[in-house]
């Protein structure tokens, strides 16, 4: 009872006394920032390294304390945490989300704080674009920027009589390879995602490779641009693969997790994804035969383009100014410097490589310029524990492609509409691509017209 009363008293008086048991006056109060991005306990090498990083950061920034959180951005809990003022000061978000968060003004512009860093101007502009608004304000720091590619199972390629070192470069070649894989191995040759907005997201990349657009600007406003020949061709390809070739497997309602899980189990020949999905396949879904993981550039059919991907770190609008400054310092220290400074990159790679369960050396896009990236690559080379040659087709093929961002306005809402188009093509043999796109165009234009642009 006494304890309860004490605690109650402490709770009631806390605002007045600035916390029971806090340091006495005279000592400057440390700024405590809560940051997402701490690896879970299952990723021991990553977690150990994170803790070391925090200790090192706190040593060189005595006024700042960092509390790691294993939580990552989850749309389910984010809103509630934001409303309750409980969201972390740094959030880790997949690249599909920043534009929505920026549009809803739920995250802070960081350009002013970031530009204090000596190498800010050297950031690869393509990498910052998906994190910026139309006025050019930058809202975050990427962790590992990627470009979408074609992930494939090298074993299934070999079994189907295909060359694992030469992944398909065009969609015609993908179609032929998928047909061979499903005919010779009985597995799904190629899988396209279709639910939880990821059908629309993947259709966007497929459209880009065919020279198509999802949105275009007309008189200062964005309108739907996907009811066009390139997108019809892209959907026609899916239709042929699904119904004529029967090379896309049986279950068609998949999101990225379903696909990577099945790929890790050796059930899928090819899917569109980033090199970063290697980590998911190995560390989340326990892919044993990681040597079978191969990735090439995103195949093309006249578009010569790909979509960006990966995770980024943002600062929610709820964080006060002192925490924002501290958060940016942390972001630069934890995610930007190791991609700029070869010595920092090498020391982190060395720590991670001590555990065989880690994935060290998964290639990314250059966060700065190609010259700087080459220095980083060279520095970490001794510690790389992934089969780098299996990523080589992606590394060599991607630079010649244009990196394109996600649709500028209401991408998630547009993806939701396009999900139904992809689902119809994949589950209904009689679906008419023309009708589906015409209806989707009307729906999307209604959403875009209602949106604040």
């Amino acid at each position, binding site marked *: 009872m006494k304890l309860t009363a004490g605690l109650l008293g402490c709770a009631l008086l806390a605002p007045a006394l600035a916390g029971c048991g806090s340091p006495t006056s005279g000592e400057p109060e440390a700024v405590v920032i809560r940051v997402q991005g701490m690896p879970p306990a299952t990723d021991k090498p990553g977690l150990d390294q994170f803790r070391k990083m925090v200790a090192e950061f706190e040593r060189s920034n005595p006024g700042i304390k960092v509390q790691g959180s294993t939580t990552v951005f989850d749309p389910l809990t984010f809103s509630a945490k*934001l409303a309750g003022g409980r969201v972390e000061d740094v959030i880790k978000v997949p690249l599909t989300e920043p534009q929505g968060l920026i549009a*809803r*003004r*739920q995250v802070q512009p960081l350009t002013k704080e970031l530009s204090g860093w000596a190498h800010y101007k050297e950031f690869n502009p393509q990498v910052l674009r998906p994190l910026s608004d139309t006025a050019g304000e930058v809202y975050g720091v990427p962790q590992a920027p990627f470009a979408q590619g074609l992930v494939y199972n090298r074993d299934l390629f070999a079994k189907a009589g295909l060359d694992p070192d030469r992944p398909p470069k065009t969609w015609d070649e993908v179609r032929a390879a998928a047909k061979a894989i499903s005919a010779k191995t009985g597995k799904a040759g190629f899988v396209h995602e*279709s*639910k939880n*907005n990821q059908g629309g997201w993947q259709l966007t990349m497929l459209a880009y490779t065919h020279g198509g657009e999802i949105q275009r600007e007309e008189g200062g406003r964005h309108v739907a641009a996907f009811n066009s020949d390139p997108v019809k061709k892209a959907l026609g390809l899916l239709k042929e693969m699904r119904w004529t070739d029967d090379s896309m497997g049986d279950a068609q309602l998949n999101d990225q997790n379903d696909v990577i899980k099945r790929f890790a189990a050796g059930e899928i020949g090819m899917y569109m994804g980033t090199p970063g999905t290697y980590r998911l396949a190995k560390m989340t879904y326990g892919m044993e035969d990681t040597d079978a993981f191969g990735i090439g550039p995103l195949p093309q059919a006249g578009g010569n383009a790909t979509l960006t991907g990966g995770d980024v770190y943002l600062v929610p609008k709820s964080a006060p100014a002192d925490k924002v400054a501290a958060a940016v310092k942390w972001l630069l220290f934890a995610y930007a410097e190791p991609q700029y400074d070869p010595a920092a990159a090498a020391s982190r790679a060395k720590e991670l490589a001590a555990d065989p369960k880690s994935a060290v050396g998964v290639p990314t896009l250059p966060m700065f310029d190609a010259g700087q990236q080459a220095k980083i690559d060279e520095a970490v080379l001794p510690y790389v524990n992934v089969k780098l040659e299996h990523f080589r087709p992606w590394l060599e093929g991607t630079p010649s492609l244009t990196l394109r961002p996600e649709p500028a306005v209401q991408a998630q*809402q547009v993806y939701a509409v396009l999900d139904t188009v992809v689902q119809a093509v*994949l*589950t209904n043999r009689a679906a008419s691509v023309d009708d589906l796109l015409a209806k989707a165009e009307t729906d999307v234009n209604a959403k875009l017209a209602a949106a604040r642009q």
Partner: protein
Amino acid sequence: MSAGRTWTARARVAVPLPAVGAAPTAGKRRLGRNALTALLFLVPALVVFGVFSWWPILRGLLISFQETNLVDPATWVGLANFRALFADPLLGTAIGNTLLFVGLALLIGFPAPLVLAVVLATVRRGAGVYRFLVYLPVVVPPVVAILLWKWFYDPGHGLFNGLLGLVGLGPYPWLDSPGTAMVSLVLQSTWAGMGGAVLIYLAAIVGVPSELYEAAQMDGASIWTRVWHITLPQLRPVIGLLLLMQLISTMQVFTEPYVFTGGGPENATLTVLLLIFRYAFQDGAYGQAAALSFLLAIVLGLLSAVYLRATRSWSAS
């Protein structure tokens, strides 16, 4: 939030509670003290309800007339959220799908536990084992059960197509076709939720006076006649209650379409609650989500009023 789980949970509402603090002969002072004591006992419940139910309900109602990003001060937008809601072509789809789920659940899910309970009531040997087996799915966490059934439904390697293939049927697309996806959801939901309703029916069947059966038997009534003319009429109040509870809970179907299909294929399993979820958590349109929740709450409120009335009149009879 499996339908059946809610049925059993809500069934407790129907149990009449003993009157607390009823002391009609006590003096005024005594009554005052009693009332104060009763109030003190009520405080924790009132606080919990206030903080976790009434305040969020009120907040939701306010948000339905606002535009907010949950950080900056909200702006009042009048009926704009409701207008946006009615302009969304998916609203009609979602309402239609929800009614389809409710209807199919009524058709498939409602008679199933009743039939099973009547059959189980006649079983003498190993009755406990059968009851345990029937109730078992209720114990399985809903998402786990759904993931299990997802594999059952897999068009290529799934259990159902495998079994049906043995007798030359199929393969069927199950979740992958707009025509069969909703039925597949209802089948799983019925399996998962039936246990609770079966137990309630069984308890009610036990309460039917055995003389009625004995008299009927002496008159030469067959089993079917006895079920039709004795069991079912005696169970009428319970059947009515469970029907209402099922209506209320199936209108809020969410977990099944969310985990099984994400609302697909082609929005064939997009329900009202899933649409609310999409507005709030995918689009960040909190106002629109709150507006639709408000409308759903009105419908559920009406159904609950019917339920309360029915409970009162049935327990009186």
